[in-house]
């Protein structure tokens, strides 16, 4: 294994998943696994979802597809065709991991179920991502990300009391499921080091999203308490959003209380907060509404930047409540190279992608290839991995199988 290869170099993954699971494969691809996205000849449906480069819809210009398919290769293959299915089985023989997100039972109906694949390649790890998993009364129910955030508890606790719950930014039920999916794959691969047998992973997106909610189950089981919506007051009661003159900031009452209150006092805005009982962190939580009301009065004439500069000088963990666009100019993210340039030679352009969630010092996260064009690697995979002759490949194209 060469220096500079990713941590997962040598790992081979077939990714049959679509919008429900495609981040899982990308997480593995980012770390160096060879992830082949197997798409129907008309293309993964994610390619039809916007936004698009320059707002021009095209299967090779979908930013939705790009985000989730960086570092993968693309093979078009009609797996509902008997010859196409055979080719997939041939690929599955030599692969470590297969990821799929079809409706439960669909793989088996296509003759690609776990029993079949396990017989063919006993070491194969298969990850099945489904909204409610492979069993249970909701097994065949329909869901999108929003419905999953609802049924997992991700939704109910965001927003203002009495008003409509507020949904997460981004597809966080899918994202949580993809992370847990990649974790499950790694667990199964590590188990294979002990005994060279693959496993079938039954991942429920509902459960994965529920496992990405911090406090709801704990409060229910621990205190028999049903967590409500509290506006912007964090459930821990140490954080709340305040309005400044030109925007919003996030208060935090977990920093050094003395220096915070000295500052507020020096501006004559402390009211009763100078009382020593507020030094107790539990007291601050208990009386958070009053505490934040006083602090709101204090910050309301500030400009966000002015407040933040002074807060940072006092090491108060305050933050500006800002849009994602502010990250482009964030000195911390830029110092660490969070945004990376990715060349798209087919468009003659280079684009900035959000980058690594972690920096590995030995085997770095890296962009090895831009997201694949539709079927970009079909010929090379048929030739190099399946050993097909040019004439056979041409026939498969002619028959619309690839």
């Amino acid at each position, binding site marked *: 294994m060469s220096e500079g290869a990713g941590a997962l170099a040598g790992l081979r993954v077939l990714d049959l998943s679509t919008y429900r699971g495609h981040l899982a494969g990308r997480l593995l691809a980012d770390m160096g696994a060879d992830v082949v996205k197997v798409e129907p000849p008309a293309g993964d449906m994610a390619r039809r979802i916007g936004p698009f480069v320059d707002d021009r819809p095209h299967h090779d210009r979908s930013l939705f597809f790009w985000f989730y398919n960086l570092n993968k290769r693309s093979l078009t293959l009609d797996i509902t065709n008997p010859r196409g299915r055979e080719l997939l089985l041939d690929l599955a023989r030599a692969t470590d991991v297969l990821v799929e997100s079809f409706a439960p039972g669909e793989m088996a109906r296509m003759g690609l179920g*776990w029993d079949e694949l396990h017989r063919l390649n006993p070491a194969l790890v298969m990850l099945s991502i489904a909204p409610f998993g492979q069993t249970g009364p909701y097994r065949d129910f329909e869901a999108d990300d929003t419905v999953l955030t609802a049924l997992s508890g991700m939704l109910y606790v965001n927003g203002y009391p009495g008003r409509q719950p507020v949904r997460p930014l981004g597809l966080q039920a899918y994202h949580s499921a993809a992370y847990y999916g990649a974790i499950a794959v790694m667990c199964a691969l590590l188990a294979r080091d002990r005994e060279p047998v693959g496993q079938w992973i039954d991942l429920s997106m509902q459960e994965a999203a529920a496992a990405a909610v911090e406090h709801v189950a704990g409060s229910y*089981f621990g205190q028999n308490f049903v967590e409500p919506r509290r506006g912007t007051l964090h459930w821990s009661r140490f954080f709340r959003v305040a309005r400044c003159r030109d925007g919003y900031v996030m208060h935090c009452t977990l920093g050094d209380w003395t220096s915070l209150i000295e500052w507020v006092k020096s501006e004559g805005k402390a009211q009763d907060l100078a009382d020593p009982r507020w030094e107790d962190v539990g007291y601050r939580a208990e009386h958070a509404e009053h505490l934040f009301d006083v602090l709101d009065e204090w910050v309301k004439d500030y400009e966000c930047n002015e407040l933040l500069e002074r807060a940072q000088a006092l090491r108060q963990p305050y933050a500006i409540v800002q849009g994602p666009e502010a990250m482009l100019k964030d000195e*911390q993210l830029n110092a660490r190279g969070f945004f990376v340039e990715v060349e798209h030679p087919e468009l003659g352009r280079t684009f900035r992608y959000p980058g690594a969630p972690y920096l590995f010092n030995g085997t770095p996260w890296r962009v090895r290839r831009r997201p694949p064009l539709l079927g970009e690697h079909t010929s090379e995979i048929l030739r190099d991995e399946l050993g097909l002759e040019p004439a056979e490949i041409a026939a498969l194209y002619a028959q619309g199988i690839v």
Partner: protein
Amino acid sequence: MGSLALQGVRVLDFTWVVAGPVATRILADNGAEVVKIERKVPPPLGDRKRGLQCDLHRNKLSLALNMGHPRGLEIALDLVRKSDIVIDNFSARVMRQWGMDYESLRRVKPDIICISMSGFGHTGPRSNFVSYGPTLQALTGYTRLMTDIDGEPAGYGYSYSDMAGGFTGALAALVALWNRRRTGRGQFVDLSQLEAVAALIGPCLLDLTVNGRVPEPPLYNSQEAPAAPHGVYRCRALDGDDDRWVAIAVRSQGEWNRFVEAIGSPAWAAEPKFRTLYLRMRNRTELDANIARWTLQRSAEEAMAALQKARVAAGVVSNGADLCERDPQLKARGFWPTVARADGSLTRVSGVPFKLSGGSGSVRTIAPEVGENNDYILGELLGMSPAERAELVAAGVVWP
């Protein structure tokens, strides 16, 4: 068969609060032996034998070790020699001050894997800043763009970034371990929770960098394939609680046709302005008002059942009781396992969101009190006699 995937993996766990403990919980659930190094007086976060603290620390072991004592540091290094992975979620300077940073630890154990889950990462101008989930969510855009319908920021009611940092940390540990088993080399993973949660925002970040479009609050516009109706609708009260909602997503024309039939084919649904997806999206305010008239007459559960029967995506906006008591799917799959306390009483905790055919992760032991496993860790792992252990307690190195 029936064995846990991470059996034989040992993790030395310096994490606290939420993000780090979520990462090590995932490893512990799947069979790793997780040894928590803790101060005798833990931060007042709550009872370990129930609720969130039990959720976070179940399946782990606890050693109450005085890291401020030279002999405490030596014991920590002895444990590093017997571990595969060391995880912390301090800001960058803490482990360095103890001499427990990666460069020091690899001298003790050359193939050690160190995962540091700091707020801002180990490099850059803010590497030593303290961060919390809500501040990271504010900085990355979640709080600003998760607005109420009137445009006021609402954000998450909790620290999603702690959960995201947690599963990102667990994945990093497993990837590094897979690599070590093939190359013999350990490594240092510098995980910035800011970056972990920023990377999860999704394709709207590319719309920003590629098209220059500043992201707007998504409200209930679909963030995937276009859909209308798409949103949450108020339902009939349940036992006097009128905070009841159902989420509905109708994407294709076929789904729309089935949806209309499922709600009894009301006259409004046949109006031309709702005929196509494009028109439904354009007239969504009126569409939503019509649908709310239907949902208000039934419970969220009835609305969900009627729509799912017609194969339309719909789900109760579940609160804690819905999730933990009523949801038949989570119950059928055993997502809320029971774990026993020392006195035999039982409590429930969150389960493991994936099943492995050869042996799924599980909840086996309740969260330990600080120092509960001192004897096992010092005696079994480090081979100290009872007399040596007593001496350490007397010297204030280990707290009983």
